[in-house]
């Protein structure tokens, strides 16, 4: 995306016209000798991160959960794969897999759009996804995504986290994910309104930047209508658990 082109004019306080013109304003492309650009600032990069890869323990109900993403692309345009899910008692739930395209729109935010498939041991749902992702004020990581399903339903997901540096390698990270739905979907244990929360307070130690084991306290549970649905199915809704995990990226 080309930034604002100069020249344009503004009026200074004294009423005197200032004519802005950048010496390096975009113009006819330079023909480089041997068609070699002197530097390559449009390189593509490929990274992936597993924010959560953890076992959640409590008497009688221990889960395994992952949440991660990978991207490939340039400074402006990237393709993302996001995946999260929980394996509980041999069954996989809360499996949200996404394929997104993102475009940088401001200093700290990217616009994202794509598809989400709820793939796990429950019934399958597919959604169109559209949202923003970036760094909010005071360095909060933020992701807000809206969804519309193939059945005409709407959903939303809000995710946020923050890194408190206790030392340069010991980092305390509160994190939360909230899911909203316009209509209930009992087969997926989803209720209308705020349906479920998955949150954690993770204390990680970065042995090196890309590899950090952590201990955490996590909470996962349904709220409101979803809670009634889950309880109606004879299950417990909501549990706070002691958690071990590994955060890693490449």
């Amino acid at each position, binding site marked *: 995306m080309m930034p604002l082109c100069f020249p344009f004019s503004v009026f200074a306080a004294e009423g005197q016209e200032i004519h802005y*013109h950048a*010496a*390096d304003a*975009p113009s*006819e492309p330079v023909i480089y000798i041997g068609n070699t650009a002197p530097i390559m600032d449009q390189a593509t990069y490929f990274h992936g991160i597993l924010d959560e890869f953890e076992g959640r323990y409590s008497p009688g109900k221990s889960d395994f959960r992952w949440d991660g993403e990978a991207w490939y692309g340039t*400074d402006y345009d990237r393709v993302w794969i996001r995946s999260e899910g929980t394996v509980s008692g041999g069954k996989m739930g809360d499996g949200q897999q996404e394929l997104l395209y993102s475009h940088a729109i401001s200093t700290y935010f990217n616009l994202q759009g794509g598809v989400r498939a709820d793939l796990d041991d429950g019934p399958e749902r597919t959604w169109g996804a559209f949202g923003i992702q970036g760094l909010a004020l005071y360095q909060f990581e933020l992701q807000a995504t809206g969804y519309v399903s193939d059945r005409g339903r709407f959903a939303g997901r809000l995710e946020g986290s923050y890194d408190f540096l206790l030392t*340069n390698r010991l980092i305390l990270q509160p994190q939360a994910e909230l899911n909203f739905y316009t209509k209930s979907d009992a087969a997926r244990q989803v209720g209308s309104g705020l349906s479920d929360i998955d949150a954690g307070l993770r204390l990680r130690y970065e042995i*090196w930047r890309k590899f950090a084991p952590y201990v955490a306290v996590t909470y996962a549970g349904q709220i409101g209508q979803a809670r009634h649905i889950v309880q109606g199915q004879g299950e417990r809704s909501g549990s706070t658990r002691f958690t071990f995990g590994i955060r890693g990226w490449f």
Partner: protein
Amino acid sequence: MSISSRSSCGLTRRRFVTGLGAGGLLGGLPANAHAFTQPMGSLPATSSANHNLRVGRTRIEIDGKCLDAPSVGGTVPGPILRWKQGDTVSINVTNDLSESTSIHWHGIRVPSNMDGVPGLSFAGIAPGETFTYRFRLHQSGTYWYHGHSGMQEAQGLYGAIVIDPRTPDPTPCERDYVVLLSEWTDVDPMDILSNLKMQDDYYTFRQRTAASFPREAKQAGSGIAALKDRLAWSKMRMSATDISDVSGVIFSYLVNGHAPDTNWTGLFRPNERIRLRFINASTMTFFDIRIPGLEMQVVQADGNDVEPISVDEFRIGVAETYDVIVQPKDERAYTIFAQSEDRTGYARGTLAPHSGMSAAIPPMDPRPVRTMIDMGMSHMKPNDSMGSMNMAGDMSGMQMSGMSMKGMGSMKMPPLKRDDPGPPPLNVENQNVAMMPVDRTGSPGDGLENTGRRVLNYRQLRATRPGADMRPPSHEIIMHLTGNMERYIWGFNGRKFSEAGPIRLKLGERVRFILINDTMMEHPIHLHGLWSELENGQGAYQPYKHTIISQPGSKLSYLVTADTPGMWAYHCHLMYHMDSGMFRTIIVS
């Protein structure tokens, strides 16, 4: 606490570069004979106008880090090239690499097709090919050469150039050494850039934390004040402790290819005068240099003689050179101590009467912390200790933009043409606008303000002879240095290289460049092919430089005579800033 765990070379090809000139002596590659007969840092006995250089990869281990380093003649640094002013030199560079290469003669005024920048000067040197550089030397002094292809420079493709003046120095020093500072890491440069794109503070392990809070509270006077400062930075989504993007976590800092523990040594006899030619050939590191126990006389900057300045310490930006003269009286060793600006490590050498001697290594200073001055918002902190200095700086900064006298009466005429981009946009590629940029040429730089030592600053640099072109500028170009640390994109005027046009100059015109640094980091700005005459208040005697440090939140200017036609590179010499967009093409025609 190294990030990388790789540490040793393969057994069959193990080669240690630890002794004096060892790499060259052990190297199997036939190359310039001068390199092999000289210990690292010592000048070849005589100048030579003809050279055959081979660029190849050699497995080299320094400080336990092993690398197939691209280099000239199989050594890091490459051989010192000693030339003579007035000579026409001819250098055959043969590429033994499997990729294209190039050599750029940093600071040397050459025709543009000899400047060695692929795409702008020539097409590069293809594998197996030989390119002959040929140019006449109009200048003398200390310079350096380095690769300008890909990331070869970051891995070892660099070396020193010493050009003897046509008229020999009437009082030459008894000793003359090159002190070339650089970094060494076995982390691939592309991985470094990729890591920075993913996490901008990847290599920074000196950030403010809960553990450092009590100390900050004590310094700030109260916990509330310290908290407020933190919140201010956090609100801007920036870090006050961002000094160097890449740090001693992966870098070993070298003197003439020697890690601190192998201690490069320059010999002397007491009362001899020693000329030390400091060259900063690193990719990302500014060094603060001192020799405890010795006063240094700065006599040359970027190859050009300056009136001697006595200092205890000076900062050398990436790609700058400084010649200093010292005269040790005692029969003892002295440590050449070059700490990185972020204080995560140091390069170290020794001056000694006998080899094998060493002196104490001083502790590193506290790492600098950025302030609102670095953000170009000096007015927000009136009680800061630097406040008064900056008010003065502010005024001279305003003078500058309003066509200052700067020692020349003829400058009353306004320039015919002015390229002012206006304040840069806050966009994907720019994070900050310096609302109140100030003149910081009088400051030695962040972290050197209150050391109790005499530290060099730019205003002190005074050329020994008046400038060659006394015309007032007819063209003024304002360039904002911009960047987004979070995304790790750098540029000028809110654009990276691939989104900007070239800067066009008329052949022969006199141009004033005004740099406004909207970022919170220093940028060593290098203009190829033409001199940059720093407007530091020395009037007709303002210094000629090839690389100028723009301090964070600052505004400075320099004059350029566009007397050589062609396409020239203009860029920040921090390699990962250059490669993420802080680069422009200048076309003189």
